[in-house]
C-alpha cells in the first residue's frame, strides 16, 4: 500500500504551526484522533465541526487544500471497503435507488469514512508541518523508548539509501521492458528485493561500524535539547480541547 509513500511529505514553511515544538504537535494530533474516534457516529454534525477545526489548522499552517486532499488518497483502499459495507452487512435493510442496503452497514461505512478521513487528515497535517528529524526528537521527548526512536531514526536514514537503490533497480528493470503483471513476475520482484537488501545492508553496516567505534551503545546522544513553553503547549492543545468540547456535546445532545 504505497501510493503515498513516494510523496514529498514535508512542506517547508514558517507558519505558527510549523514553529510549534514537535512533541506538542504529536500529542495534540494523537489526542485529537482519540477524541474523534470516541465520538458517537450518530452525531454527524460533530464530524463536520472536526473537519472545520482541521481546516482552520490547515489554514494557519498555510497548507493548501489541494495538497491536503491529494494526500488523503492514501485512504482509498478503505473507502473501497466502506463502500462495500452497506451491501454485505447484516441486519435491517432499506431500499436506496433500487438497491437493498443494510442500515447497519450504512452506519458502519459512514463511521469508518468519517473517522478514518479525519484521522488521516490530522496525520497529514502533522507530517506536512513537521520535519522528520523534529518528529523523532518529539517522539523522544514524549518518552517513546529510546530503542524505538533509534530504530525509527535509522529507518529514516536508511530509507533514502533504499529508495534510491530501489528506483535505480526499477529503472533498470523497466528499461528492459519488464513490468510486474501477475504471479509469473513475482520471482523477479523477489530477487530484486534480495539484491536491494544486500546493497542497503552493507552500506548501512559501514555507517553503523563508524557509530559503534565512536561509543554508540544503543542510544543516540542528546546534543540539542527541545523544550516547549507553556504557551506553546496551550497553542498545540487548543485543537484537541476544542475537539473534546465537540465530542462531549455529541454525547449529550
Amino acid at each position, binding site marked *: 500500500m504505497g501510493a503515498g509513500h513516494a510523496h514529498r511529505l514535508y512542506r517547508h514553511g514558517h507558519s505558527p504551526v510549523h514553529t510549534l515544538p514537535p512533541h506538542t504537535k504529536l500529542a495534540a494530533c494523537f489526542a485529537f484522533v482519540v477524541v474523534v474516534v470516541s465520538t458517537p457516529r450518530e452525531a454527524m454534525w460533530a464530524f463536520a465541526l472536526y473537519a472545520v477545526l482541521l481546516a482552520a489548522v490547515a489554514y494557519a499552517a498555510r497548507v493548501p487544500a489541494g495538497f491536503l486532499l491529494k494526500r488523503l488518497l492514501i485512504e482509498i483502499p478503505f473507502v473501497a471497503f466502506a463502500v462495500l459495507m452497506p451491501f454485505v452487512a447484516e441486519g435491517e435493510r432499506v431500499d436506496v435507488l433500487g438497491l437493498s442496503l443494510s442500515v447497519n452497514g450504512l452506519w458502519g461505512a459512514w463511521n469508518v469514512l468519517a473517522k478514518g478521513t479525519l484521522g488521516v487528515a490530522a496525520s497529514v497535517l502533522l507530517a506536512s508541518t513537521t520535519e522528520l*528529524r523534529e518528529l523523532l526528537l518529539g517522539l523522544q521527548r514524549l518518552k517513546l523508548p529510546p530503542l524505538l526512536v533509534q530504530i525509527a531514526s535509522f529507518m529514516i536514514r536508511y530509507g533514502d539509501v533504499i529508495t534510491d537503490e530501489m528506483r535505480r533497480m526499477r529503472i533498470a528493470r523497466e528499461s528492459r521492458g519488464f513490468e510486474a503483471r501477475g504471479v509469473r513476475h513475482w520471482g523477479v520482484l523477489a530477487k530484486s528485493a534480495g539484491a536491494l537488501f544486500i546493497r542497503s545492508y552493507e552500506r548501512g553496516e559501514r555507517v553503523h561500524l563508524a557509530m559503534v567505534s565512536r561509543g554508540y551503545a544503543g542510544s543516540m546522544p542528546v*546534543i540539542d535539547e527541545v523544550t516547549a513553553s507553556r504557551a506553546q503547549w496551550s497553542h498545540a492543545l487548543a485543537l484537541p480541547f476544542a475537539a473534546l468540547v465537540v465530542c462531549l456535546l455529541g454525547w449529550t445532545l
Partner: protein
Amino acid sequence: MDAVTASLEVSGLAFAYPDGHQALFGVDFRIGRGERVALLGPNGAGKTTLVLHLNGILTGGAGTVTVAGLPVDKRNMAEIRRKVGIVFQDPDDQLFMPTVREDVAFGPAAAGIKGAELEERVRTALELVGMAAFADRPPHHLSFGQRRRVAVATVLAMEPEILVLDEPSSNLDPASRRELADILRSLDVTVLMVTHDLPYALELCPRALVLSEGVIAADGRTGELLGDDELMRTHRLELPFGFDPRSVTMGA
C-alpha cells in the same frame, strides 16, 4: 617501546567470519605509547579485520587485545571505544549527522559529556584539523579532503589513547595529503596507520608492521622494511615507480 604499559597489545589473535572465511591466524604485536606505526599488507591480508578487533567490534575469536592495559571485552567496551579512535576509509560512512558540529559532538556526547564542555571538545577537535569554520555545514557539502579531516576530528573529539587510521591517504589530492600528514604529525597520540601507501607510511611512521596471510610477517623500521626487496616481493608490497626508500631522509 619505552612506555611501561603499551598503548596497544595484541596477542594470539585469530578470527574467522561466520561464512567460514578465516582472516586472522594468530596476530601478535605491541605498540608503545606515543609511537606512530604503519600497518602494511596486501589486499585481503586481514588488515580491516584486525582494525575491527582493536575496539571490540569483532570479537569471539581466539587471542586477546589490550588497550592501555585494559583488555577488550564486554565489560570495558565503553571505555575501549573511547580510547581507540578509528577513522574509517570512507568519510561518508563516518559522517552521519546533519552538521559537522553534531557529527563531531556525537562521540563525546555518547560518552556523557554535555553543555559547555561538549562545545569545547568540538571546537578544539575542529581547530586541530583546521575545520572550525565549517562547524555548521552539512558534511556532504564539503570536499573529500575536508570530509576526511572532519572524520579525523570526530575521533579526536573523544581524546583517544590511540588513533587508528584506515587508508588515510586514499582518494586525497597531493595538497590534502600533505595537510593531513601535517595534522597527524602535530598530534600527540599513538597512531596506527593501516595503508597501502608506502611513501606515506615512510613519511609518517618510523616503525612498520607487515601483515600477510593473517599473521605479522615483519616488524621493524619502516625504511629498512621497505628497502628489503625480498620481503616486499613475498608479501605483494610494491613501491611506486621511481621511489627509493633508501634515498629519502626521514624527519620523523
